[in-house]
């Protein structure tokens, strides 16, 4: 980075102003930095992500071990107090964030892969394949999303992996539609037609020419899927149909607030996990917004 700046300085006499020679990623990052809330969110997300990743190192106590008195208020020993059976809330919060992020990221990966493959096939081949895939997408989209998730959660045994799979397999239609639309547009461009004339293989055209050109919008969309799946995990676990105790997730930590004593007298048990969900989801949404501006070819 520094070296490049020096080079620019010698060639043009102006530090960091040369944007003709920067790579695509540099362009995106330069535009991303303009979005102040996006930058702040990125920092917040990285800090929280690292805290979740290093939960075993950072957590002062074992999240599932009884460490202190029942429902103890926050004090020096237990910074966020203890829960109904005496577990350290701060430690559980760190582990819960780990689980919630894991669920969100895995579910997003699964739905993105499904959506991209179906969208590519539907958009590129058109005809019957397109018809069948898009009508199927319409059908899945017709069922209210959360209802489908709840029903699936009722049929399959609730647990960490079933919730990941359920969210992943229900969330793909949006991405499939997006990819299909982009592929339809790209198919009409001259460079794809050029590839066809040049006799490039189908695999090459689909994965080396079309896919890279639609990665940016997919990435932007994936951030909103990530935000949504984290909200859904929280809602499901809150209802007791998601991640099962003793494993902590941000949603099931809020579960206790259904009891009146917890809600009124022990706010340290339910406010921190709730706030953490809001902060995480908001950060993800802002990052998505900044990314949308940054990858938009029409912006400066």
């Amino acid at each position, binding site marked *: 980075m520094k070296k490049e700046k020096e080079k620019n300085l010698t060639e043009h006499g102006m530090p960091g102003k040369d944007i003709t020679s920067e790579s695509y990623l540099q362009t995106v990052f330069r535009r991303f930095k303009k979005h102040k809330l996006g930058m702040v969110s990125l920092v917040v997300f990285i800090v929280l992500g690292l805290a979740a990743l290093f939960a075993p190192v950072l957590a002062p106590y074992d999240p599932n071990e009884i460490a202190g008195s029942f429902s103890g208020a926050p004090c020096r020993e237990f910074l966020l107090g203890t829960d109904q059976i005496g577990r350290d809330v701060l430690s559980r919060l760190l582990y819960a964030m780990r689980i919630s992020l894991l669920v969100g990221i895995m579910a997003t990966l699964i739905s993105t892969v499904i959506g991209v493959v179906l969208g590519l096939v539907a958009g590129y081949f058109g005809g019957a394949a397109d018809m069948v895939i898009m*009508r199927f997408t*319409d059908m899945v989209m*017709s069922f209210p999303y959360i*209802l489908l998730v709840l029903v699936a959660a009722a049929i399959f045994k609730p647990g960490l992996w079933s919730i990941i799979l359920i969210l992943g397999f229900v969330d793909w239609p949006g991405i499939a539609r997006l990819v299909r639309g982009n592929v339809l547009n790209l198919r009409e461009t001259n460079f794809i037609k050029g590839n066809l004339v040049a006799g490039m293989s189908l695999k090459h055209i689909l994965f080396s020419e079309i896919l890279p050109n639609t990665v940016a919008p997919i990435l932007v969309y994936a951030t909103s899927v990530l935000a949504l799946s984290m909200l859904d995990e929280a809602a499901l676990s809150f209802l007791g149909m998601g991640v099962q105790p003793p494993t902590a997730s941000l949603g099931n930590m809020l579960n206790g607030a259904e009891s009146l004593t917890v*809600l009124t007298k022990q706010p340290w048990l339910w406010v921190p996990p*709730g706030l953490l*969900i809001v902060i995480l*989801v908001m950060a993800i949404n802002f990052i998505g917004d900044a990314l949308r501006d940054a990858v938009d070819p029409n912006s400066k």
Partner: protein
Amino acid sequence: MTKYIIKRILIAIPVLIGITIIDYAIMCLAGSPLEMLKGPRVSEAAVEAKKIAMGLDKPFYIQYFVWLGQLLHGNMGYSVKSYQPVAEMIRSHLGPTLLLMGVSLIVSLILAVPAGIYSAIHQYSKGDYAVVTASFLGSSIPGFFLSLLLIYIFTIKLKLLPSSGMITLGTNGGAADVAKHMVMPVIVLATSMAGSNIRYIRSAVLEILQQDYLRTARAKGIGRFRVIYKHALRNALVPIVTVIGMEIPMLFGGAVIIEQVFSWPGLGLMTMSAIIGRDYPVIMGVCLLSAVVVLIANLVTDILYALVDPTISLN
């Protein structure tokens, strides 16, 4: 135009059939209804007799058509728990849910439409940033967490609003009482909807403001006020119609969780207790109903869309 409408309806028919197949498949996946019957005091022969009586000895596809035929006669089956007809249960719970959804939708539009338009007209101003940030907060806060916060503030601390049910127990209710019970669930549902709507309307209006016909209007010198209120807003109706269409599935989903938290006696609460009690005929009835409602809502949106923007029907 008629051709376009017919085409949209023809596309919707296979989707509708597909919805019934998915619905039926989920019901089969969930297990045989005979399992609920089995017990130490029920003989094998009785189960077998019931199996034939229920038509479960026939092949999968015939069972599907039998079920579909019943459905067309308005028979959605019977609850495994209460033995009431599912259609009847849905009918009796529909009212409160429609009331809640309708009011929330209106409130969210009252919030989102002016905010989105204001934000677009004053792009990059302090007000715009405030509105956009608020809209992100609205769509990032989990409904159940906002509900808990509201209950904590308004019910427990201020003792202003009731936190559960639709009417005060032991009274006849009355409009004022129902309205009081509705405040918090409506705030929660409207907040999450307004959050995404504001951004949608904002970007749609921004796009309209860059159109050539608005530049022409401005060039004619008719004044900023008339440009925005006569030329821009009329065209902003299109995205607003779309927003209402997109809202319907969100409302159905949101209602399930929010009704549970506030014990609102609607379809959502009924569905949730059916899900917890594994009352599959009820769950499937609700799924089917909501999917059909969503499908119809999409169809109506498409047609309205074509009415406001005639170029669409030509493609």
